[in-house]
């Protein structure tokens, strides 16, 4: 069972596909859950404390906005621990709801730099593309080992 980083990190489809075919999806919910369930000082809504942008310095320089560094404190450890990645390149909702577009660019860059198996896809736009999409993910995840 491999740890698979998914991008967009909030994707329902990717999260489900990875778990369905027997691997562990690394999504933003897992990182948020760790913070929500850790006692400390109240910092609503996401329990992102002033410590997070400091941790983010590992992946982004000090002149980079604290929003990027704070988000990298969530995604950086997951990128380091992942053993494979699935990236969707045309996810419009990744801009805005998921946060700063610069963080997304940095996340994609770090994934491309890392020497792990990667699968680049676009969302399917019709039923036939849906078949190709699912088959590609299944084939990719089967190649990682485990029990699909």
């Amino acid at each position, binding site marked *: 069972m491999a740890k698979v980083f998914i991008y967009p990190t909030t994707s329902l489809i990717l999260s489900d596909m990875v778990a369905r075919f027997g691997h562990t*999806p690394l999504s933003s919910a897992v990182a948020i859950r760790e913070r929500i369930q850790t006692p400390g000082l109240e910092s609503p809504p996401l329990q992102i404390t002033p410590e997070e942008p400091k941790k983010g310095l590992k992946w982004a320089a000090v002149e980079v906005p604290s929003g990027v560094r704070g988000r990298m404190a969530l995604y950086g450890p997951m990128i380091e621990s992942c053993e494979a990645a699935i990236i969707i390149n045309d996810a419009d909702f990744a801009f805005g709801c998921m946060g700063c577009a610069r963080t997304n660019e940095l996340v994609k860059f770090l994934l491309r730099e890392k020497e792990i198996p990667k699968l680049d896809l676009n969302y399917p736009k019709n039923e036939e593309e849906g078949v190709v999409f699912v088959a590609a993910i299944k084939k990719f995840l089967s190649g990682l080992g485990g029990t699909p």
Partner: protein
Amino acid sequence: MNAYTPVLTGTVTKYVVVESFEITPADLAVRGYEISDGAMIKETCFGLVINGREEEVDRIITELRKVDPDHIFVKDRGFPPGDTRRCRANLGGARPGYHGIEQEMTIIPYVSHGLEEIKKRDSSEIPPPKNPLEYHLLDIDKLKNLMEAQES
């Protein structure tokens, strides 16, 4: 700053999203309540939110998936159900993460079709996906033809 004491520690929360012509979130919720052993199950417009011990939540989800395996989708959630920091009832408007699910719900029917089809078809017959990183730039001959067509 106030001290923060988390609730429901050691539990996991997962969304179960239903996109099916045959079952509704209500059907799935009833099935969930039947087999639940201490997990919290909340019915929503798009499916369920299940909170509990990880092994218990996974067991319930495994059973629920059997109802309609190609039309039930699951993802993790950071917050427990009804958390005032995220719940729509407190915020007055859609929960921030809902927009992502709403957008993906338009794509899920194609994915469900794909899940059904890969069981029927030989995997060698299915072509590989196009590489989205290969940008198809405008071919110079095509550009020349376009320019000539415009000028004539």
